[in-house]
């Protein structure tokens, strides 16, 4: 049997064409942060000339892409550094493909983009559509874990985060992914409801701080919303499979994200938000709008290098939780 092509992705993209074409998605972020020595991967990129003061993820993505057959980078809707990443890889003779979530959020444009993926990988739109049902079934498993988290606290925050964030590439194992989710549920089956504590929502890109969710739990708070991770699982129930990539909030204008967060803050009875931002990322600017538009206390946490939470961040986190516990 021919070896399946391994397709590196820079963030969540429509996975249907990959699954229809029997290609293996490899989320390079997960590959980077889950590697044995992510700091080494950053250094490798810096040795190749990546600047020290640029987003760590981009450097990690670069190094983590070494053994994939093709890199699909999202050049609009995620991170503009990705364009330079793709051009760098291309200049080194690596196959790359730019994908864009359209600025105008139009169906025509997203269909064009998805057709582009189908053409690239060698499948038809019909075949992609056929793959969509099973894909959403899998994503819905992660969404059900998210429900258990915020409704009952009967799944740990860390496991909920991992379940949601892994929907971007199904751990490069679409067949075995459901089994992984069953393991999470099995592991948590005896988890009794924890003390309520302050209920926090995590907004922003997935964290580079490796122990952030256990740290939050250890500080006496409960994370009950994982904004972008949940979006990776395409929670929108409206429309068809293509429509889900238009309802997906993360790559489009911030008003959609604000609306989604506002709804979930109310539904999940959230007391405060943690806005995670990556050093040197343009999304740090979003903080202004979140603070203006969301009527709930916000603590902004910045991460740069992968690793456990530093003492300074912990002090800020504990102070925030303390203030929320005291009712402001």
């Amino acid at each position, binding site marked *: 049997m021919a070896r399946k092509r391994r397709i590196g992705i820079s963030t969540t993209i429509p996975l249907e064409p990959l699954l229809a074409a029997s290609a293996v998605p490899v989320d390079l972020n997960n590959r980077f942060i889950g590697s044995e020595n992510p700091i080494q991967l950053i250094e490798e990129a810096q040795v190749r000339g990546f600047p020290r003061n640029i987003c760590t993820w981009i450097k990690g993505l670069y190094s983590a892409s070494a053994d994939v057959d093709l890199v699909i980078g999202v050049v609009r809707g995620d991170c503009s550094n990705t364009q330079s990443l793709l051009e760098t890889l291309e200049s080194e003779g690596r196959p790359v493909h730019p994908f864009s979530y359209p600025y105008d959020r139009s169906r025509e444009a997203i269909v064009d983009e998805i057709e582009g993926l189908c053409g690239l990988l060698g499948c038809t739109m019909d075949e992609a559509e056929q793959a969509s049902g099973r894909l959403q079934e899998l994503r819905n498993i992660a969404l059900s874990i998210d429900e258990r988290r915020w409704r009952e606290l009967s799944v740990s925050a860390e496991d909920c985060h991992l379940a949601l964030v892994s929907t971007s590439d199904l751990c490069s194992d679409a067949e075995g992914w459901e089994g992984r989710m069953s393991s999470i549920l099995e592991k948590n089956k005896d988890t009794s409801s924890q003390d309520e504590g302050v209920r926090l929502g995590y907004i922003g890109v997935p964290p580079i701080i490796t122990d952030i969710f256990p740290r939050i739990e*250890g500080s006496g708070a409960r994370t009950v919303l994982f904004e972008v991770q949940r979006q990776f699982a395409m929670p929108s129930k409206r429309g068809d499979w293509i429509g889900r990539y238009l309802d997906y909030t993360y790559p489009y204008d911030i008003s959609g994200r604000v609306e989604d967060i506002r709804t979930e803050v109310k539904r999940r009875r959230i007391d405060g938000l943690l806005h995670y931002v990556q050093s040197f990322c343009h999304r740090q600017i979003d903080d202004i709008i979140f603070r203006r538009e969301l009527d709930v206390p916000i603590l902004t946490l910045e991460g740069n290098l992968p690793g456990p939470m530093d003492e300074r961040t912990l002090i800020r986190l504990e102070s925030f939780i303390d203030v929320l516990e005291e009712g402001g």
Partner: protein
Amino acid sequence: MIPELSFLEEMEMGQKLGVDAGSTSTKFAFLKDGRISTSIMDTSRFLYGKMAECLVGFDVVSTGYGRKRIPSARPIPEIRAHTLGVLKSTGLEDFTLLDIGGQDFKVVRVEKKGIRDFHMNDKCAAGTGRFLEKMSAMLGMSMAELGSFRGNEKILESVCSVFTETELISLMVEGATRERLAEGVIFSVYERVRPLLRMFPCDTIVFTGGVSRCSGLAMTISVGLSVDVMVPERSQFMGAIGALSARNVKNPSKALS
């Protein structure tokens, strides 16, 4: 008994003690004859000299970087501790707290005795006590002398402590006077905290922490922002006094210990 901890001999076992184990110095606050008394020592001596063990048997509430390194202490977050300390020490109910310590600064907006919002510096210690220590050494001045200067204008361009050292050397070579450079250093600290203070506009700023002893900086802030800057008595001890006066302090959770 270590001189800085000799006060323990006069305390009864089980008596409450507030400890602020900061990045540079560890401060203690306790009641003596019904009044708050304080003591201070180097944090490195306190933590590495295993002196925290001397506190076993007392009812210790701790804050600061080393708050979890003290056996049997109940830790509280810094923002709460410092705010409580100021409330206890000043009687004010509405103010913006500026605390500049050894390696951090915090700005807390307090309204009707409650914490409304706060900011702490992140990822960079420029403008903190360590920065001033470095600069005073470079200028051949004591901290007290450096802290007496008032900054009026921007002289140093860099936003980084390390680069500022380089810049200082260049200006020295060009013939700038020590006094002018000292004014520049103070002004650069003011510029560092100014945006945070402007986020919480208020008529009264309560300035605490080790750096609050720099009277020239307090004056620079007051003139620059047209506000009253109040430096309470024992301004370096607000965290310890807050820890001493904290109520409803939980025992540390297992996950934190």
